[in-house]
């Protein structure tokens, strides 16, 4: 009896005005975030005639759009292109950013600070400014309209290097010295000892890099010309330019395009918050 009364009393105490306001704001924010996604899925289940009917649950839901997107046109190819680009660039970033970050964090050598500052300073240059030299470079080396052309600017990033350096600095030197005494070479120490200790940072970097490349639009649009090399975001725009705007097709493509990002997020979500906080991108 007393325990139940206590519990009830505690629940009542929890209902405070501040708490109610916070939850209300969070709820509104949540609705604002989720509504476009729901409309995306909803529209993807509608026929062209129904798309301006704004009811969330379609009158006659159909999977015909999915069948069309997946069987006709080049959507599967674009999906594959995006997958290749995002996966290769992510793996490359995990490898090279952490290798550079580890070196900068754990070795003392002349010019170490200068190199780090030089890498960091590239963060201040906006992509729009870099696109012209990237394009000229791609044209000279014959990388235009190729996978490598899409991927090369992102194979390592200053942000990833910075993130990994910060994380590696938290790894105690004793671990590395113990490994040295146990006879490991420097590469093995990095790979077998240091890397497993920074899994949260690697997961965060994987998420950021994958999402960034999966949704990348500007550079892939510039560097690709043939339709079979389009990535998903570029491909989806072709639904808008060729046969007027086919909203149901765009939404179906977009719905399919969110699946990998959702999977990546679900797999690594517990690391996201830690990674974001460490990168100083709180908010």
């Amino acid at each position, binding site marked *: 009896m007393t325990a139940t009364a206590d519990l009830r009393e505690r629940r009542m105490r929890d209902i405070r005005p501040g708490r109610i306001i916070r939850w209300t704001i969070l709820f509104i924010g949540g609705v604002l975030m989720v509504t476009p996604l729901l409309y995306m899925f909803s529209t993807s289940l509608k026929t062209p005639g129904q798309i301006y009917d704004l009811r969330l649950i379609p009158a006659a839901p159909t999977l015909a759009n999915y069948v069309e997107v997946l069987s006709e046109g080049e959507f599967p190819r674009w999906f594959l292109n995006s997958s290749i680009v995002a996966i290769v660039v992510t793996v490359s970033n995990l490898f090279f950013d952490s290798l550079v970050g580890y070196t900068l964090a754990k070795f003392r050598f002349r010019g170490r600070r200068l190199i780090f500052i030089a890498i960091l300073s590239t963060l201040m240059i906006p992509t729009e400014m870099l696109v012209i030299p990237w394009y000229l470079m791609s044209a000279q080396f014959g990388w235009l309209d190729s996978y490598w052309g899409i991927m090369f600017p992102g194979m390592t990033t200053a942000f990833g290097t910075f993130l990994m350096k910060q994380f590696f600095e938290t790894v105690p030197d004793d*671990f590395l*010295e*113990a490994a*040295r*005494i*146990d006879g490991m070479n420097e590469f093995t120490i990095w790979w077998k000892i240091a890397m*497993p*200790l920074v899994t949260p940072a690697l997961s965060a970097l994987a998420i950021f890099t994958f999402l960034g490349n999966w949704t990348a639009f500007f550079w892939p649009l510039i560097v690709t010309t043939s339709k079979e090399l389009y990535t998903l975001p570029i491909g989806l725009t072709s639904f808008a330019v060729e046969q007027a705007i086919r909203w149901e097709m765009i939404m179906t493509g977009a719905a399919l395009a969110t699946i990998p990002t959702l999977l990546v997020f679900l797999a690594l979500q517990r690391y996201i918050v830690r990674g974001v906080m460490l990168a100083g991108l709180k908010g």
Partner: protein
Amino acid sequence: MATITLDKLTKRFGRTEVIHGIDLAIADGEFVVFVGPSGCGKSTTLRMIAGLEEVSGGQIRIGDRVVNELDPKSRNIAMVFQNYAIYPHMTVRQNIGIGLYTSKLDKDEKARRVEEAAKLLGLEPFLERRPAALSGGQRQRVAMGRAMVRDPVAFLFDEPLSNLDAQLRAQMRIEIKALHQRLGSTIAYVTHDQVEAMTMADRIVVMRDGHILQQGRPMDIYSNPVDVFTARFIGTPSMNILAGGIEGDAPVARKGGPILLGVRPQDLLIGSAAGQVADTSGLTLWGPVTAVEPTGPETLVHFDVDGETVIGTAPGDEIPEVGARIEARAPAGAIHRFDASTKKALEPS
């Protein structure tokens, strides 16, 4: 097993010399403890032996081989670190096994050695656990296991017990000593805890400011410290040091006296114990009690002598009142004499 020889060993960080040409010979199977305050260079010396710090001058020999230029892995030594340095992403079995990383032994032999080390250290039930699920003492044992499986020529310990609580520290001290007796291995052990040094070492090396002040068997250092620093550093509570002189045969405490008199609290007896000191050539001190610390078998009595706090010992059941004036006596044989200016020990007259 092997000897370790340091010959005029020097270490500089930039232009600052932190180890000033020290000489030391550690015998095969000997347990040597480096002791000294923070920043005295004991850990740096150990790290140079391990190969984790470059040698700026002089030589390190392990056995007959000069190892100055050798990688840590080529020196065949094992090291146990203060924070254990066992890998959190590996199980106890993997952590111990990593000690055999470069070994050319076959898989079965490696597994056998890991099991053997685990058995010796009482880690068998925990072999599949990760370090996070172990206590501090168990983690330290894993670190020792990793060092043991290699069958190294020498073990280096860098303040291995500093992170443990007092009770566990006492237990691990005994375990490490027992392990040394069983394996007969050469051990260089660094600590700032003089109790560890006294209880474990075959030989203590007292360091200060990058110099070796004194080395010898624990009781030799305790009984015959070469200077005031060593005298105060070894032994708990620290030795009382008072200015004084010699009047007739007997030492007398006197402000501004030409020599320093040292007497250990255990030798400076108070109350009924003082009565047993019949020696007239001993030291007698008087003063008001400022604090008492009953420890059970004895009572440590802090009292004031000419503005200096002195610690003496009364029997456990005699606890003087704070403020009471007491007399404390020490026999002549327990008095150490030091030069007031150089702080070095004077030959007994």
